[in-house]
């Protein structure tokens, strides 16, 4: 039955990666709409979200059946546990991308802020990159790459604090910018949450590969 189990496991992995691809696209489009003011990108986000929500349910069901019918142990069990958790994180990332797109709709209805923002474009790039790397680490069972994702989370947190500070200054200087600046603060928060979910995925990959739980003590206790 080993062969059959491996086939079912492979299908699960492929479905999860398909979901990951859809979510990566959503972050890309949300960033494009926000930074390049491309409103048409927002429409694509809603379409992907629908499929992501369906996959969220489907993947949980696959995991449930794999556990109930095959009683996996050892690395097989850790793999399925990782899939359950990554599935949940990906769905939350998709929700964050939708939140960004909703805030962007409001922003695009108004003129751009005069001051050029530096932190938010960097946050978009970093969060998207962290998610991509965490999924690559999952596919390749690459502990070093997962570890690098975990370490980059601090950078995203730092960028969010800087963005908050910068946007507060803008609001203090010009009260007509408050609504737009608040929208951007919310978006910075969404991006920071995306990086947190990517970090969770990376931690799950490390647990899946090594059986070591490094959560809540980020100073890399992998070895």
């Amino acid at each position, binding site marked *: 039955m*080993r*062969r059959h189990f491996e086939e079912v496991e492979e299908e699960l992995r492929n479905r999860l990666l398909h979901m990951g691809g859809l979510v990566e696209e959503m972050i890309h489009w949300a960033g494009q709409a926000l930074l390049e003011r491309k409103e048409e990108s927002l429409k694509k986000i809603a379409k992907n979200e629908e499929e992501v929500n369906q996959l969220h349910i489907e993947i949980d069901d696959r995991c449930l059946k794999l556990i109930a019918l095959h009683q996996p142990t050892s690395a097989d069990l850790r793999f399925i546990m990782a899939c359950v958790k990554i599935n949940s994180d990906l769905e939350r990332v998709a929700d964050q991308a939708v939140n960004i797109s909703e805030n962007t709709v409001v922003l695009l209805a108004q003129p751009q802020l005069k001051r050029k923002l530096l932190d938010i474009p960097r946050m978009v790039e970093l969060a998207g990159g962290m998610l991509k790397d965490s999924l690559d680490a999952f596919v390749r069972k690459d502990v070093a790459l997962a570890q690098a994702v975990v370490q980059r989370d601090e950078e995203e947190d730092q960028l969010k604090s800087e963005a908050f500070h910068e946007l507060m200054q803008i609001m203090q200087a010009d009260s007509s910018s408050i609504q737009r600046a608040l929208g951007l603060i919310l978006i910075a928060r969404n991006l920071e949450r995306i990086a947190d979910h990517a970090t969770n995925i990376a931690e799950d990959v490390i647990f899946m590969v090594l059986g070591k739980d490094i959560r809540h003590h980020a100073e890399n206790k992998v070895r």
Partner: protein
Amino acid sequence: MEELLIMSQAALADSVLKKEEVPAPKIQTKDLALYYGNFRALKNVDISIPPQKITALIGPSGCGKSTLLRVFNRMNDLIRGVRISGQVFLDDQDIYHPDTDLIALRKRAGMVFQRPNPFPISVFKNVAYGPSIHGMASGRELESIVERHLRATGLWDDLKDKLHIPALSLSPEQQQRLCISRLLAVEPEVLLMDEPCSALDPIATARIEDLLFELKKDYTIVIVTHNMQQAARVSSSAGFMLLGELVEFGKTGQLFTNPIDPRTHDYITGRFG
């Protein structure tokens, strides 16, 4: 209004078409009861075994699962004092009709037993026996039948140069594979398996399970097993039996994750049995 009605009818037709198509059952029982003398071993069993899938029957010892399996090719007829009521269909054929040809029935629905039981003759003769007595083949044709069915069970590569050694000199796993080859050689439609792995070690069991998975593409398989994990792993439909009653029958994924009857829940979670 009329337009609306037409639209809703179209939507209805569409929804009917989209429903999962359920193929006609390969085996079906209707209100089946079986008595050993005065003892009622099966009670009002209604079951539909889907074609070209593996169906597992589980339940504690004495629940009637092997009895039900033996109903499907009338093996119980060999036991004195057995009485049956209700109906059993193999496709459209009522197999308990007085005109039923039992030899033809057992050719269509053959059985593999708990302990491998090859005939005390050569490997080749074991597989060739059925086609010979049924007059299905002879000579070169028989050789090719033997090869085909030894290949189907993964025995050919190991045994092709030793076809004339005694079947009883094979390992238990090879003997069980040989029994399955012997069964396939008479071109059955249904394979009835009564604890086919219980005399085998875990590795041999895993390999037989892989074989069942291959075979289900061409055959309808019903397997009785004490091993719940095995039922969960191999089957697509499963039935839980208790005291001669089919308590619950459905898709294996459903039965093992969200059983409807509390007795099924208690059994599969090890609370009794």
